[in-house]
């Protein structure tokens, strides 16, 4: 790891100021991506601004079906929150299957979505749940927030402070994990509301998370796995790498979507 300077702000405003004063600073969430990346010298920020000690970024509130999750909330906290499990167990399931227990003790939802790794789990949930992403400057819909491979609408000095969504009628998540990294080789999150179904796919798209409209349309007609039987996803725009070809991922999208619907239907 190259030299860096560590900072520990206690408020969002202080964190933003510290980043502004740094030559090439980075916000540090749980560090489960940034620290390994710095160790490999693939990132070399002059300063790291640790967001773990900012109280206003913490905590989960569930009021009726309205959910708000602070950006600094760890995967473990989301996985084990009983109030959240009562209205949207799919997001608890998703959080409980990120990485491994030690990673889940550190990694945060804000860090995950700000990084927008094309194989991360959370972006699919945000997109399918039609979540709002709250930042130090504004609030954006998930559709506006995720802009491509590791890309978000965030400005350099903008911090995700929370995400919020209304729990859908039903939701489910299924992923085919890479056997080594546990990142999604393909993961699908489905959310059913009276006005329709949203389906988001992670791990498969060359541009990161995306909505599978053909699957959405089919599931909006009937929210059953069998309705996806005849559907074939195009391989165009999907990733091909040593783990899986684009065609394989295209097939996995349908398979994972079926499993997600099955999970949602209980």
């Amino acid at each position, binding site marked *: *790891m*190259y*030299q*860096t*300077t*560590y900072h*520990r702000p206690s408020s969002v405003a202080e964190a933003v100021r510290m980043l502004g004063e740094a030559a090439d600073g980075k916000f*540090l969430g749980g*560090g*489960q991506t940034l*620290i*390994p990346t*710095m*160790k*490999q010298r693939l990132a070399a920020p002059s300063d*790291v601004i*640790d967001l*773990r000690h900012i109280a206003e970024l913490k905590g989960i509130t569930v009021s009726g079906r309205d959910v708000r999750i602070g950006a600094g909330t760890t995967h*473990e906290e989301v996985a084990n929150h009983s109030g959240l499990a009562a209205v949207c167990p799919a997001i608890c399931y998703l959080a409980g299957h990120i*990485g*491994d*227990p*030690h*990673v889940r*003790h*550190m990694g945060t939802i804000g860090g995950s979505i700000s990084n927008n790794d094309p194989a991360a789990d959370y972006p699919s949930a945000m997109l399918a749940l039609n979540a709002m992403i709250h930042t130090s400057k504004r609030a954006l819909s998930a559709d506006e927030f995720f802009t491509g491979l590791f890309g978000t609408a965030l400005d350099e000095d903008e911090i995700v402070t929370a995400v919020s969504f209304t729990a859908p009628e039903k939701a489910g998540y299924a992923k085919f994990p890479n056997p*080594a*990294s*546990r990142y999604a080789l393909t993961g699908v999150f489905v959310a059913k509301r009276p006005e329709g179904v949203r389906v988001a796919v992670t791990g498969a798209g060359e541009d990161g998370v995306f909505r599978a409209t053909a699957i959405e349309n089919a599931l909006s007609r009937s929210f059953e796995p069998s309705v996806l039987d005849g559907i074939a996803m195009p391989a165009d725009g999907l990733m091909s790498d040593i783990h899986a070809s684009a065609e394989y991922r295209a097939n996995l999208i349908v398979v994972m979507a079926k499993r997600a619907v099955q999970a949602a239907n209980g």
Partner: protein
Amino acid sequence: MADISMVINGREVRGSVEDRTLLVHFLREHQGLTGTHVGCDTSQCGACVVHVDGKAVKSCTMLAAQASGSEVTTIEGLAKDGHLHPVQAAFKEHHGLQCGFCTPGMIMAAVDMIRRYPGGLDEKTVRAELEGNICRCTGYHNIVKAVLAASEAMSKPAVAA
């Protein structure tokens, strides 16, 4: 340089380290606590697992400065008064190791796991929970046995002397 302080195995320690120093290197090289191992260095193998404020984390994936102000427990902090921790005893009893390199991380992960499942564990859960700890010798079989035995032993109320 970062001036840091933390409580390690019940002992308050201070140090001045480069900001980029990883917690595992602070433990091993500055504190001489070489029980915590570095296996893969890519945040996958879990040989470096310690507890920070009561939770298992990978000490190769955390800066020492991030842990400043925290309570850290390492493998050296488990045995009390010359008696092995029940998880250590179970690993010995069930031969839950061969070369032993992954063992400190396995044991710290197991202690954390047993804490999180006070109602007890089954084999499937133990295997899933060991996702973040890699062993290249044992095939995990005796590790799983040891964790189950320790969980069982620790759920029994202590016999009054």
